[in-house]
């Protein structure tokens, strides 16, 4: 008796799961339009949740197409690879990928393009096998803009220093390099102990920033690069009672930085909005799907991508650079809280 009931129970559960899957599947195949799927590095983190709001927005604007975002549950390039491979097999018309590791995807993306799938990437200007790589901004311009904001706060004079995630991080080095170049036009600005490595660790950055503050009691400014650097340096400035006396401008996200922005320990943060980047990627994919071409100065209809600059990419594809940098301070960060 007991066994029979067991079997019945199991049978019921299997039936239930099957139905649920069936319904979900029907929903996924309900629309007939072209499919654009955005594949992010990892799902469920604030950055890519923000990107998903952009993808959803784009989907609303284009109800005739199947537009969605997926991503692996763990930060592993092998998992992202599998998702993309399955999407290609499923017959997805266009892929908008934010590669976890561009090199690992090269082989697969090449096979995808050979098969006629449209491939667009983001945050991967070294990706060879892509039709278009969308970048939010020119790295040199971004670094210079951060430094200009810092110089403004410092009154164009005094000692300042820079932080990078690691010396091997190409973009970070480009940002601080452009910053130094910008600062060289102000003779009063003196760069000291440049390129401190933070390893994107707020605590480590905090310790390092304290050392810098002790060594240079008269330091006036910090320009930081990795996402958590502003938090570490901001805490060091606040604890040293130097809020308002030392300027801090760096890459960061509004939500985590909010408290320090309010207190004034962080002067301003710079970033690009993943929401807009997601929309821009999808728009590029749509244009390519329709057989169009991405041309220099084109308007993608997304804020920050109204006049993109198009260059030759790492491979045969194009590098599409927007002007999507955002620099916000105490008064403006609430407009883009994420």
């Amino acid at each position, binding site marked *: 008796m007991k*066994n029979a009931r*067991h*079997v019945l129970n199991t049978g019921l559960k299997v039936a239930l799961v*099957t139905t649920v*899957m*069936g319904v*979900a*599947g*029907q929903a*996924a*195949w309900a629309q007939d339009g072209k499919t654009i*799927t955005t594949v992010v590095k990892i*799902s*469920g983190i604030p950055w890519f949740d923000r990107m998903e709001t952009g993808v959803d927005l784009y989907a609303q604007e284009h109800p005739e197409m199947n537009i*969605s975002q*997926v*991503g*692996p*549950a*763990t*930060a*592993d*390039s*092998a*998992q992202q*690879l*599998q*998702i993309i*491979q*399955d*999407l*290609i*097999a*499923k*017959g997805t018309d266009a892929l908008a990928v934010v590669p976890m*590791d561009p*090199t*690992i*995807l*090269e*082989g*697969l993306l*090449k*096979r995808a393009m050979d098969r006629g799938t449209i491939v667009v990437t983001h945050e991967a200007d070294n990706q060879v096998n892509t039709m278009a790589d969308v970048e939010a901004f020119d790295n040199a311009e971004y670094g210079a803009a951060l430094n200009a904001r810092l110089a403004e706060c410092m009154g164009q004079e005094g000692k300042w220093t820079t932080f990078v995630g690691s010396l*091997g991080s190409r973009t970070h080095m480009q940002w601080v390099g452009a910053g130094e170049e910008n600062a060289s036009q102000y003779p009063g600005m003196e760069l000291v102990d440049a390129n401190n490595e933070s390893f994107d660790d707020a605590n480590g950055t905090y310790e390092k920033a304290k050392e810098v503050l002790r060594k240079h009691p008269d330091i006036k400014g910090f320009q930081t690069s990795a996402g958590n650097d502003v938090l570490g340096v901001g805490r060091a400035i606040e604890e040293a009672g130097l809020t308002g006396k030392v300027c801090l401008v760096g890459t960061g996200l509004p939500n985590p930085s909010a408290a320090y922005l309010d207190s004034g320990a962080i002067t301003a943060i710079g970033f690009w909005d993943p929401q807009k980047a997601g929309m821009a990627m999808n728009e590029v994919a749509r244009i390519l799907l329709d057989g169009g071409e991405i041309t220099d100065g084109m308007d993608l209809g997304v804020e920050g991508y109204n006049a993109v600059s198009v260059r030759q990419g790492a491979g045969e594809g194009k590098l599409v650079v927007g002007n999507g940098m955002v620099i916000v301070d105490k008064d403006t960060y609430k407009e883009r809280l994420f």
Partner: protein
Amino acid sequence: MVKRDANLLVLCALIVVLLGLGGAVSGGTYLSMFNLQSMATQVPEIGLLAIGVMLAMCAGSGGIDLSGIANANMAGVASGIFALSLFDAYQSPMLFTVTFAVGCMIVGLMGGILNGIIIARFGITPILGTLGTQMLFTGLAVVLSDGRSVTIGAPDPLYALGNGLIFGVPTSFLIFILIGIVLALVLRFTPYGLRLMLTGANPKAAIYSGFPSGRIITTTYAISGLLAGIAGVIIAARNVNVKWDYGTSYLLVAILIAVMAGVRPEGGYGRVVNVVLSAVVLQLLSSLLNFIGLSNFVRDLAWGALLLCFLAVARFDLINQVMVFRPSRRIPHATK
């Protein structure tokens, strides 16, 4: 006398159900030749690592191999750098491919032997020993490659290995199946296979019976390492590039596959055919979920549920109860 293999039955049933379900919800695309091939090319790398885990588990005394994927990456990176320094991948493609593949297998084998020595000679608990070598292998791969990915390139023979088809079946999948058959035969018909299972079932008795336990365990971990090396070749062939941090999630997935296959974690029992089928089931399931477009967190949930189901099947002997089969003696035996 005949005891039904519950896991084998459930796995076969699951494959049929998943294929049917996939075909139904995707309107046939899931069953298209292209997707079947695509799924088959994804199985070998994780499948080979899972067989390695199975062998380690069979050896008993808490046997496990956590160093699989790290070993595979190290093999790919080290052999890649070596082969690239000798040959140009596109000038002499065949020579390059053979050097690279053999190099991978040698590095993998040496990694496995190191595991075996640490466990058998020094008596270190496998979970700790292989955790240590996992970090060592990863570290070596980072140092050798400066933390960057190594471009192996796609010379024709290597490309064919990872992406080619033979009679419509992906080459890498055929290699995987071939290795599975060979290992199954070895475990079933050679003295080594029998001794491995007996050692796993009762290490103490094995020692008193005069089995060369140390050699058996070292051989087992060496085979596991060799499989990791072959996985390294396949990874490189598929992805063009190899990197030290590829497949960090494979570690637990490989163990999941082995446990789903009914390999006894205490040692002494495991069938290669089940591990192969189990790897296939996991692939069918994750591809199906990707087809439906469900979040990848659902996949973790589904995998977890599946694992619990299999544990229940094994614990309560469900299949045999349902079949009203008379219980038979539980003897450790090596079978295909």
